[in-house]
């Protein structure tokens, strides 16, 4: 190959500087493309965290009969402690249950007035190890038959829906990430191809002077990588800006709890972006290598 580092560095630098139109166009395109992909990644992470939180919220409530004895309550507690499917549980005693009910009826004063502590059943709040629907139903049927238990409830429908949703959402996010990656690759490759088209005559001449394909390719490849690097740095800056302006302000809105998970640390954004920039550089390199190839057939 007889490739000379000095030659490659000089050649790349000159190409970058002498064709500012092409350089600027490539850098902007790469920045936009990577920002797009970066947003998809961040949203993906938010959705993942969100789905995790939904699963964390799954709980089974074991209502204790009003006429259950203290021994029966202890027995329930003991079986809960033994059961390997139970991750955690807590006992809501009469006072706590009454306070909860009061709060629930805040807006319906008549109801709140009617309530007496004795009316409110005590209960165990159980967090299953496996928040999926089958384990939950299994746990329910076990405790349903336990003496002293009045009823076991769980938002079975909700759990099923959450499960489906979190799957759909992650498919959706994979899909969006795939689409934005393909978009990014297309945009970058497009720009490279056009830039090469603009320089096709030069490439032909180099070939005629006796340059090997690699001798011609390498500077273009390095150039592609350099442009991707610049574009990538710009993309990181854009992502940090977006994080501040969009995600964080959304996440910090009191009411919209759903977006609570979209509060990303700046370091997360940067770490998230580094592989992206690397991928961009690889695309830049391979894309340039390929695009130049079309004009090497002389």
């Amino acid at each position, binding site marked *: 190959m007889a490739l000379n580092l000095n030659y490659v560095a000089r050649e790349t630098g*000159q190409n970058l500087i*002498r064709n500012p139109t092409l350089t600027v166009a490539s850098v902007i395109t790469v920045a936009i493309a990577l920002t797009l992909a970066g947003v998809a990644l961040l949203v993906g992470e938010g959705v993942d965290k969100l789905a995790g939180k939904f699963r964390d919220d799954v709980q089974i409530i074991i209502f204790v009969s009003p006429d259950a004895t203290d021994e029966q309550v202890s027995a329930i507690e003991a079986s809960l402690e033994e059961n390997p499917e139970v991750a955690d549980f807590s006992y809501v005693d009469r006072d706590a249950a009454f306070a909860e009910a009061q709060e629930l009826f805040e807006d319906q004063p008549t109801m709140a007035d009617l309530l007496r502590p004795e009316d409110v059943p005590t209960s165990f709040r159980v967090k299953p190890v496996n928040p999926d629907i089958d384990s939950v139903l299994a746990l329910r049927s076990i405790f349903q038959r336990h003496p002293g238990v009045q009823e076991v409830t769980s938002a079975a429908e909700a759990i099923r829906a959450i499960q489906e949703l979190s799957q759909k959402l992650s498919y959706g996010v994979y899909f969006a990430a795939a689409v934005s990656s393909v978009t990014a690759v297309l945009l970058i490759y497009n720009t490279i191809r056009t830039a090469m088209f603009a320089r096709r005559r030069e490439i032909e001449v180099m*070939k005629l002077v006796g340059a090997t*394909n690699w001798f011609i390719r390498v500077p273009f490849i390095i150039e592609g990588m350099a442009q991707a690097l610049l574009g990538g740095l710009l993309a990181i800056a854009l992502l940090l800006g977006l994080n501040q302006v969009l995600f964080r302000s959304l996440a910090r809105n009191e009411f919209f709890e759903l977006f609570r998970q979209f509060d990303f640390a700046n370091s997360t954004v940067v770490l998230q972006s580094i592989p992206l920039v690397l991928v961009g550089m690889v695309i830049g390199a391979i894309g340039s290598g390929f695009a130049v190839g079309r004009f090497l057939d002389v």
Partner: protein
Amino acid sequence: MIRLENVTKVYKGDVVALRDGSFEINKGEFVFLVGPSGSGKSTLFRLMNREERPQAGRIFVAGKDIGELSSWKIPYLRRNIGSVYQDYKLLLNKSVYENVAFALEVIGRPRHVIKTQVPAILELVGLAKKQRNYPNELSGGEQQRVSIARAFVNRPLILLADEPTGNLDPATSVGIMRLLDRINRTGTTVVMATHDRSIVDTMRRRVIELDRGTIIRDQARGVYE
């Protein structure tokens, strides 16, 4: 050094640029290629450095059938052939110096060699003062001389010069012809296409004449017509 065996080149649209052409050029020869516009001179050069491939016949350069050359070997063939193109084919985004240096960089010459050889050859073609200029800042004749310098600079075995004096005044032409002659005397085979009657008639070298793709004359110590 160069041997053509019944070579035929037909372009699309049935333009026969070379019809059943055969000749042999020995090492160290100096050959003029003459013929009217469109008779196939440039095509012949393009066949010899494998820019084009013939429809029939075989071409040997330095003993090798270049029709059988695998494509990654073509650059090595071209490094043994210095070409002065009719349209110069300079790299427009490189300065005069860089254009000439490129031919040396391609073959991996070290920097200090480039730094001495490039200015020397530019001096020889009278462009010492234009080293930093870009091709579009040069006159036609100056561009032509850059092209000549680039073709010479790596001391190729063969020099193919396509009308190297087409845009030069008589005095500069004579200078360039002296240079070609000197190069030829050091053993380089030179093939030169030209329309300049006085040059051919003065030098009295072998003349191959083409007419509409056919070799109609191959004469030692010939004249333009």
